[in-house]
């Protein structure tokens, strides 16, 4: 009645707060959890740029796509980076979660 779970009990005592892990979690979470949405927002803004790169005379429109080619390309780059980062994250979790 001495199975592995019990045998593994005397692991090193963890500190009350693991500051090394904490600051890494904070920094990486800010990058992924706030940085990626910000990049998405930059993409939205680029996408909304009007034909001449500025707002048209009749004022801003509610349309998502403004029609500026450079804006559309810039938006595409932003969205691709966001999607790529998410895809990479999911892949990394899958890799770590299925040890060979």
């Amino acid at each position, binding site marked *: *009645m*001495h*199975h*592995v*779970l*019990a045998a*593994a*009990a005397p*692991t090193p*005592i*963890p*500190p*009350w*707060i*693991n500051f090394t*892990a*904490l600051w*890494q*979690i*904070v920094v*990486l*979470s*800010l990058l*992924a*959890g*706030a940085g*990626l*949405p*910000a990049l*998405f*927002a*930059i993409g*939205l*803004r680029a*996408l*909304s740029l009007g034909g001449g790169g500025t*707002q048209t005379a009749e004022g*801003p*429109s*509610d*349309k*998502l796509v403004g029609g500026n080619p450079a804006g559309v390309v810039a938006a595409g780059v932003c969205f691709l980076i966001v999607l790529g980062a*998410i895809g990479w*994250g*999911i892949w*990394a*979790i*899958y890799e*770590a*979660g*299925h*040890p060979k």
Partner: protein
Amino acid sequence: MNDFLLVLVVITALSFDFTNGFHDTGNAMATSIATKALSPRVAVGLSAVLNLVGAFLSLTVAATIASGLVDTGIVTLTVVAAGLAGGIIWNLVTWLFGIPSSSSHALIGGVIGATIGAAGGHAVQWHNLVAKVIVPAGLSPIVAALVAGTGTWMLYRISKNLTEGARGSGFRIGQIGSASMVSLAHGTNDAQKTMGVITLALIVNKTLPATAGAPFWVILACGLAIALGTFVGGWRVIRTLGKGLVEIEPPQGMAAESASAAVILLSSHFGYSLSTTHVATGSIIGTGLGKKGAEVRWNVAGRMATAWVFTLPAAGVVGAGAYALANAIGGTAGVVVDTIILIAIAAVIFWRSRKTTVNPNNVNSEWTGSVAPSEPADRAPEPAAA
């Protein structure tokens, strides 16, 4: 070996997993439902599918729920059953009051309480409990609020030249993506806890060798149970998170969900199995703090925080009581009596909940101070254009 008891424990564990799903649907989907980025039905359907996928995504933290927190050498099937009963009852009671409390803490509290009931306090590794569960639980909402607040502030600054309409539709799309990530993270994080409990029960019963990982049928069953729970939709908790804490706009929803997904997934990468509920609530409060003029209803937040403090001890008391009763009766009969009482309590709670039904029709109705909706549940659904 007692296969009847084992089957009973597995069914109880899957029932817990089901409550885990419907209690936590709001963590992923409350903000998307509140901003109408998704209709309530589509939101819970999408979340359910992603919870199921998430259950298969990672298998690293299965079995961590007990090992490291209690002396697993003294764990018996009766202890596991009693611990699960503690977790289920706490989840149902908090659901009745629409309080988003941690399913993980309910489970941990129940198992610890049952262990204390069986072997006394020395069987609990208190230092690990504080360092691995309680301290992270205190820190995670703060980190989530910081990330979500920063994100919200940046999103409003970057998008300030967009019209209200363009901003709304753009960020609703982003919200669907980020809420999907939270659902995936929830499946990964929470389904594994039940997988760990069932695997532990199989090992205790010597059905599996001590070194075994979760068998495929356990992974599948846990994924399905949490997905089914998610699909049923914990509308009461969804309502509190989506309408009660902060009035949420699409950029805030996207910031909140992105922050939650990042904090949950990164923390589990560093070996901390956080409560998705604590993180999601911290994120939603953060979006209220990050937007000028937004109001956080601190009385609602305070009520939640109070429930969080009581989750571990309350589930523990129920777990200990359930163990004491089962042990006094003895053997399989004791666990059967526990199960009958559990079913009876669950039935009473469901009956009580029908007095103030919250469902997809009224989940978004005006917040008037409590989870009880201001509009009846049988109101005709909004026109399709909404």
